[in-house]
C-alpha cells in the first residue's frame, strides 16, 4: 500500500500497462468467480475426509436389557461381587427410535486417544465410541459395563472380571486379551495415559479364558474400580493395536456408536452400532457433534434449535435456559470446586499460621454470587461431601468469613496486614476464575493488605503454576472420581500436580498410603477424616466453593441424564438411552 502513496502520479506519460479498464473489470469478475469455484472444490474435497466405511443404520427391535441389580462402588468391600445393571431401566413404552441428535461441544476435541484426557468435549465423543470394564451411572454409582461382574480377593490383590460377549466396531470379537492390551497400553510410559499412575499397582493381567480377565496387584488399591470406570480406562482392540493402529487417529471401540467421520473444527459424526451388546440400544441413529469454542454462540445455537444438547452451560445463561419453554436445564450440585493454592516455598506462605489466618479472610458467599450467579455452595470444611461414606460432620464449619479473626491471626503470626504485599495469580480467559480472583483481592484489600491480581491467559497460567512461578493462585478443579482416594491428587507431596509447591507433609502422605491399601471402609473413613482435619489446619490451600455444572437440552430430548457431582461430564454415558420426541 505504501507503494501507491509514495509514487506520484505522472499525468502525461503514455500507459505502459496495456490493460484496458474494462479488461480489469472482467479480470475482477473472473477472480471472484474463481474464488467461489475454489471454495466449492475445497468443499468437495473435504466431505469425504477421514470417513470410514459405515453400514447403514437400521432401527433395531427388541427390548432393552433390564438386568437390574444393586450397583455398588466396590470400594472397600474385600470380596464383594459388585454387580448391577450397566444400563438403567427397561425401555420406556413411548420411545421413538432413530433420528439424529446434534450435540454442541465446548471445543474442538484436541485429540482422539481414549487413554489421554483432554477435557470435556473430547470425552463426550470418546464415551459414545468406547466402553470401559465398569462405568459411572446416574446416581454416581459404579455400574457394570464390559464386565458383568467382578470379584475382589480378601487380600485385595486379585481382581477377577467376567466379561460380556460382544464385538468391536470392526467385527473382531471382544475378549480378555483386549482388556490386557488396554491396561498395558495405559501403563506404557510412552503413551502418556492420564491414569497411568493409578494403574501402577497392577502387576499382571491374564486372560484365564476369553470371558475372564484376572488382575494381579502388588499392593491393595482401594479405588481401583473407581478409576477403571473412568472414560480414560477405555477398552481398545488388541488386534487393532497389534496391527499398528493408532487410537489417536482412528476411534474404534465397542460402544453404542461408531465413528463415521471427523472434519476438524466442523463436526464429528458417529452412527448407531447395530451390534451393541445392550440389546435394543442405542435409540438414536446418529449423533453429530459440533464444536463451539465461544460459549455465547453455544448457548445461541441451543436456543435457536441448531443443536439439541449443549454442554458446559455458562452460569450467566442458566436462568434464561431454565425459564425457557423450549429448553431444559439439567445441572448437578458441586461438580467442581474453587480454591486458592499457596506456594509454600515463598514468603509469607511458608508459614502455616499465615495460610490458616487467610482461611477466615474470604467472603465465600460473594464468590458464589459473583462467579457462579448463585449456583454453588460455599466450602467451610473439607472436600469430602455429606453424601460420601467418608464424610465427617466435625469439620463442617472449620472456617468462616471473619475478617477480624483473620487480622488477629495474622498479627499473631507476626504479620502486619498493612505492610503485606501479595500477588494473586488467576486467568482472564475464564470468567469464573477472574471473578473469584477479584473477590479475593477485594477481601484482602479490606484487611489492609496490598494485593495485586495478575490475570494471564490460560496457557500462560498453566505453565506458571506447573513451574511454581507464583505466590498464590486461583484454581478451579474437580475430583477425578467419588472415592475419597482422590485426595491423593491434591495432598500427596510427590505425585501431585495440584499442590506441588503448596505442601509436603509426610504425615498426610503416610495416611494417604495407608488409606489406599486399607480394605476396611470404617478404617479408611477414620484415616480420611484425619487427613482432612490436618489439611484444614496446615492449610496448603483455602477451599472456597463448589459450583454447579450442567447441560442444556431442547425439550424434545428424552432419556438424557446428568450424573451427579464430579461425574457430571461423564453424562454422555446415558447417550445410549437418549431419544428424540417428535415436536
Amino acid at each position, binding site marked *: 500500500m505504501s507503494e501507491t502513496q509514495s509514487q506520484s502520479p505522472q499525468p502525461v506519460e503514455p500507459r505502459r500497462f496495456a490493460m484496458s479498464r474494462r479488461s480489469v473489470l472482467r479480470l475482477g469478475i473472473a477472480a471472484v468467480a474463481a474464488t467461489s469455484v475454489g471454495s466449492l472444490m475445497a468443499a468437495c474435497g473435504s466431505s469425504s475426509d477421514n470417513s470410514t466405511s459405515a453400514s447403514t443404520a437400521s432401527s433395531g427391535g427388541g427390548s432393552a436389557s433390564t438386568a437390574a441389580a444393586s450397583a455398588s462402588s466396590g470400594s472397600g468391600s474385600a470380596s464383594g461381587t459388585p454387580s448391577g445393571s450397566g444400563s438403567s431401566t427397561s425401555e420406556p413404552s413411548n420411545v421413538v427410535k432413530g433420528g439424529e441428535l446434534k450435540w454442541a461441544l465446548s471445543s474442538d476435541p*484436541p*485429540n482422539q486417544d481414549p487413554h489421554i484426557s*483432554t477435557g470435556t468435549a473430547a470425552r463426550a465423543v470418546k464415551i459414545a465410541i468406547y466402553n470401559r470394564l465398569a462405568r459411572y451411572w446416574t446416581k454416581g454409582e459404579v455400574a457394570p459395563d464390559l464386565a458383568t461382574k467382578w470379584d475382589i480377593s480378601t487380600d485385595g490383590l486379585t481382581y477377577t472380571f467376567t466379561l460380556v460377549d460382544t464385538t468391536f466396531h470392526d467385527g473382531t470379537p471382544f475378549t480378555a486379551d483386549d482388556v490386557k492390551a488396554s491396561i498395558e497400553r495405559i501403563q506404557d510410559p510412552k503413551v502418556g495415559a492420564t491414569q497411568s499412575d493409578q494403574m501402577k499397582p497392577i502387576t499382571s493381567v491374564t486372560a484365564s479364558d476369553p470371558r475372564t480377565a484376572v488382575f494381579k496387584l502388588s499392593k491393595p488399591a482401594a479405588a481401583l474400580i473407581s478409576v477403571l470406570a473412568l472414560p480414560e480406562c477405555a477398552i481398545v482392540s488388541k488386534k487393532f493395536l497389534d496391527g499398528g493402529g493408532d487410537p489417536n487417529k482412528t476411534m474404534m471401540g465397542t460402544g453404542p456408536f461408531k465413528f463415521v467421520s471427523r472434519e476438524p473444527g466442523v463436526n464429528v459424526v458417529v452412527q448407531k452400532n447395530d451390534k451393541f451388546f445392550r440389546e435394543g440400544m442405542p435409540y438414536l441413529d446418529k449423533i453429530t457433534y459440533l464444536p463451539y*469454542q465461544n460459549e455465547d454462540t453455544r448457548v*445461541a*445455537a441451543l436456543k435457536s434449535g441448531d443443536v439439541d444438547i449443549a454442554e458446559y452451560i455458562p452460569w450467566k445463561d442458566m436462568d434464561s435456559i431454565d425459564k425457557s419453554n423450549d429448553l431444559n436445564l439439567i445441572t448437578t450440585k458441586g461438580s467442581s470446586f474453587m480454591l486458592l493454592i499457596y506456594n509454600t516455598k515463598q514468603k509469607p506462605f511458608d508459614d502455616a499460621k499465615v495460610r490458616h489466618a487467610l482461611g477466615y479472610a474470604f467472603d465465600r458467599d460473594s464468590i458464589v454470587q459473583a462467579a457462579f450467579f448463585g449456583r454453588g455452595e460455599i466450602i467451610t470444611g473439607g472436600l469430602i461431601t455429606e453424601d460420601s461414606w467418608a464424610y465427617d460432620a466435625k469439620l463442617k464449619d472449620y472456617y468462616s468469613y471473619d475478617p477480624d479473626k483473620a487480622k488477629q491471626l495474622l498479627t499473631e503470626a507476626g504479620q502486619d496486614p498493612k505492610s503485606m504485599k501479595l500477588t494473586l495469580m488467576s486467568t482472564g480467559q475464564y470468567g469464573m476464575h477472574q471473578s473469584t480472583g477479584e473477590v479475593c483481592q477485594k477481601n484482602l484489600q479490606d484487611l489492609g493488605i496490598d494485593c495485586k491480581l495478575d490475570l494471564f491467559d490460560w496457557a500462560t497460567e498453566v505453565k506458571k503454576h506447573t513451574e511454581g512461578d507464583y505466590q498464590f493462585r486461583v484454581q478451579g478443579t474437580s475430583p477425578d472420581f467419588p472415592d475419597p482416594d482422590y485426595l491423593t491428587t491434591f495432598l500427596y507431596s510427590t505425585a501431585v500436580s*495440584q499442590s506441588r509447591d503448596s505442601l509436603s507433609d509426610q504425615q498426610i502422605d503416610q495416611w494417604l498410603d495407608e488409606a489406599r491399601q486399607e480394605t476396611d471402609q470404617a478404617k479408611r473413613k477414620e484415616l480420611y477424616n484425619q487427613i482432612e482435619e490436618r489439611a484444614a489446619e496446615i492449610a496448603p490451600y483455602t477451599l472456597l466453593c463448589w459450583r454447579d455444572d450442567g447441560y442444556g437440552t431442547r425439550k424434545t430430548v428424552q432419556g438424557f441424564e446428568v450424573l451427579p457431582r464430579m461425574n457430571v461430564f461423564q453424562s454422555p454415558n446415558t447417550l445410549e438411552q437418549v431419544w428424540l420426541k417428535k415436536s
Partner: protein
Amino acid sequence: MGAYIVRRLIQSAVLVFLVASFMAIFIQLLPGDPAYTILGDKASPERAAAVRKQLGLDRPIYVQYADWIGNVARGNFGNSLISDRPILNDLAKRLPRTIELIVASMILAIVVGIPLGVIAANYRNQMPDILVSIISLLGVSTPVFVSGTLLLLVFGVRWQILPATGYVSITENPLGHLEHLLMPAVTLALLEAAVILRMTRSSLLEVLSEDYVRTARAKGLGQRIVLYQHALRNALIPVVTIIGIQAGTLLGGTVIVEYIFNWPGVSTYLLAAINQRDYPVIQAIILIIATLFVLLNLVTDLVYAAIDPRIKYG
C-alpha cells in the same frame, strides 16, 4: 511494468520471510506449553518434559527454526502438535472458507455501498443523502462484535429465520450453505459497505465539481449520462483503492465474525492454535496471512495503475 512486478514480488517474498521468521522465533517466547494442552494441566512436569522431547520442543529455538524453514521451503508445514494432523490438509479446508466469507462480504459491500454512495452524492444535503449518511455512520461506528451478536440474536435466536451458527458444506446442501454464509457475510459487509459508501459519496462530489463535468453539462448532456459515464468512472479510482485496503482489514474482521458465528475458517483455527500454543499451526497461518496481505497490496497497486491512465510504475 514487468520489471516492477518482479521487483515487488521479490520485496514481498523478503517481507513475508521476515514476518514468518519473526513469528517463528517470538511465538516460542510466549509463556505457555503445548505439552500441557496435550496432557492436561494435571500432568507432572516429567511427563510434560517427555512430551516436549517427543515433539522436538526441547531443541534450541534456532534449530527448530532452521528445521521449520527447511520444511516450509519444501512445501511441508508439518503436523499440528496437538492433533498430529497435517497442517496443510486443515488449511486447505479452512482457508477457502475464510476467503469465501471475505469475497461474499466484499461483493455485498460493493453492491450496496456504491449505489448508496451515488444516491447520496446525487441528492447532496437532501433527505436521501441525510438518510444514507446516518446509515453509513451507524455502519462505521458499530463494532463487528456488536452488529454480529445483534444479527445472531434477532434473526437466529428470536425469529429463527436463519441458522444462528455453524457451517454446512456447499456440496452437501448448497442452499443451507448460503443460509449459513449470509449472516457472517452481512456482518463483515456492514463495516465495509459504510466505508465504500462514504468514499464513493465524497469522491463523486469532488468529481462533480470538476470543470469537465461542468463542460459536459454545458454541452446539454443529461444528468444520468454525466453522472454515470463521466463522473462515476473517475470517482471510482479512490474507491477501488479503499476496497483493496479494506480487503486486508476484512481478514482481521473474520477473526471476530468466525468466532461469533462458529464459522470454521482459518481465523477460528488460529485462535484455537494460539490458546493451545500449537506453534507450527500459528506459524503456518501467519505465513499464509502475511502472504495474502502482501499479495493483496500488490494487486491493489496494479489495479490502481490499470484503472487510472495517469499512473504508471517503472
